[in-house]
């Protein structure tokens, strides 16, 4: 890995890439390149060692079996823990978000997570499927979250994690809060290509990893129209 470029790792696309999760990698790379930031992307399969020197790590959603397998391999590998302790930024989606916590449920059994976020997940009575909307923690300075959620889990936050957003439509963690963040780790139930509807979150990850206070604005006409349409659709539900 070179040190001049922004290095983005997509964790285990062979296991956790059920809902267009590749989109987050494409969007981050696209928005960095549009600012003239050189980017290197790495798709690290579950049978490969996890690099420790990248700047941003992405982990996506998936089915129970692959989720449990991914957690086991990441714990045994240890590389992601080292990367986070060195200050890497993380975007964790859905199943990937759950496995960043202390524990989660997969195929009816409690599984050990990475313990990198102070959260734990169990099963809800019903599956949460549909539009999700929330007001993001004001400390992050971002516009409202919009996403599509599809999960059976419910997530409980400990004192060392803050909710990413207060839910205004949909379920998220528990119907009240959605996602979690601590340091440079962001987790959300807004699944799949969450950054397509939330380019400001992509830019937050880019600012965290480059140290830049601000980035040159991009033409987000289409993303803005999409956001407006989906925020209104969530209200209508």
């Amino acid at each position, binding site marked *: 890995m070179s040190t001049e470029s922004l290095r983005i790792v997509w964790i285990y696309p*062979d*296991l956790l*890439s*059920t*809902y*267009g*999760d*590749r*989109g987050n990698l*494409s*969007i981050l790379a*696209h928005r960095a390149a549009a600012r003239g930031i050189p980017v290197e992307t790495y798709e690290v*399969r*579950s*049978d490969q060692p996890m690099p420790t020197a990248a700047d941003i790590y992405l982990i996506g959603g998936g*089915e129970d*079996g*692959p989720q449990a*397998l991914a957690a086991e391999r990441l714990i045994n590998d240890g590389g992601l823990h080292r990367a986070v302790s060195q200050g890497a930024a993380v975007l964790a989606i859905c199943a990937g978000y759950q496995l960043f916590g202390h524990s989660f449920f997969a195929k009816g059994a409690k599984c050990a997570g990475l313990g990198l976020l102070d959260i734990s997940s169990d099963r809800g009575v019903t599956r949460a*499927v*549909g539009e999700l909307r929330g007001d993001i923690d004001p400390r992050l300075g971002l516009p409202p979250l919009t996403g*599509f959620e*599809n999960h059976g889990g419910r997530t409980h936050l400990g004192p060392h994690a803050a909710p990413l957003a207060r839910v205004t439509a949909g379920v998220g963690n528990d119907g009240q809060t959605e996602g979690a963040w601590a340091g440079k780790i962001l987790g959300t139930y807004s*699944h*799949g*290509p969450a950054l*397509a*509807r939330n380019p400001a979150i992509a830019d937050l990850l880019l600012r965290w990893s480059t140290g830049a206070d601000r980035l040159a604005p991009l033409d987000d006409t*289409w*993303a803005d*129209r*999409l956001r407006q*349409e989906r925020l209104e659709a969530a209200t209508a539900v």
Partner: protein
Amino acid sequence: MPLIAKVATTASKTAAALSRAAGRGDGSVIGGWIGLKIDPDLLAHLSSGRAVALVSGTNGKTTTTRLTAAAVGVLGRVATNSFGANMPTGHTSALAKEGHTPFAVLEVDEHYLAQVIEATRPKVVALLNLSRDQLDRAKEVAMMAQLWKTTLAGHPQIKVVANSDDPMVVWAASSSPQVTWFSAGQRWLDDSFVCPESGHPIERSGGDWWCTGCPLRRPRANWVVEDEGVIDPRGDWHMVKLQLPGRVNIGNAATALAVAAEFGVRPIEALPRLARVASIAGRYAQVDRDGRNIRLLLAKNPASWLEAFDMAEQAPTLLSINARDPDGFDTSWLYDVDFSPLRNRPVLITGDRAYDLAVRLQVNQVPFRHVLSFDEALRAVPPGRLEVIANYTAFQDIRAELDRVN
């Protein structure tokens, strides 16, 4: 047939006819629904005495069913659900409408395969492929394969015709003692990187594949697509001439020939009938309007989008995306499709979810223009071919603009 089944059949046909007369649809669902209310075993009653073939999988079902019905037609009359109504109501309606036929070829939604096998006792079941499709409600791919596998294990008398190129299908079919394999290629690989048997990675090389942790591997195919034709189990190559575009349809034709062969139809008898199939419920249909030659391609999920790009000519292309109930409400799959094959042509976008598509194309570096209606799209392109690729309800909307072309 028991008396109640006769009553139910008549009621079903009447309801279907009323629905058509009222302009409410093609009657292929309502008729079956009413029939099954009167006689819950109506599908079983209507199937008895017929030699039945079922066609299931994520993609290519409707086309393969149509081609198979054409091929089996060599032997006699065939009842088939040609409107793509692929759940038990649609099967019931199709069989009731056709009356007594010696044969039936039915397209089956993959979720209903077990139930329809129980009811129709088929002679042959064709398994095409399994990949992600409407994941906000569909069963996970591996769970679907497991369901098929369990079902086939309980019906060893069924002759299975299955795709040797799809590891999920091969694993599902492995519980059957009678499998004929066809090789029609697998364009979509993302749902079969992990072996459903052992959980180990699946390796690929050329057209071959194998599990790195267990004996599951690609079986030797009996029917193989090669060039513009098909090699049969005896090793004879047959040219396949179709009006339907794309290599994927040569694969669908190979599947149809393999299924028909189980009924005793020889390829040489079936091929002229396959060549007469021009379009299927609007799919592949060509319509001339205002000097534009419009061709309709349906793409419902990532795998079928890749196939549509393969079929579409280098011409202006309209993409239309909805996310209504039959489409699934989740548009995440847009990021599973690589739209870059469209970079060097004029691209127009429309549909309920055009903004999702706009953001996707921007990231994919595909220039596009947004239009608000099909008419605006027509005016925006020069005379000549306009390729239209749309997902399910968007396709039906455009088909309605073109007088419900078949």
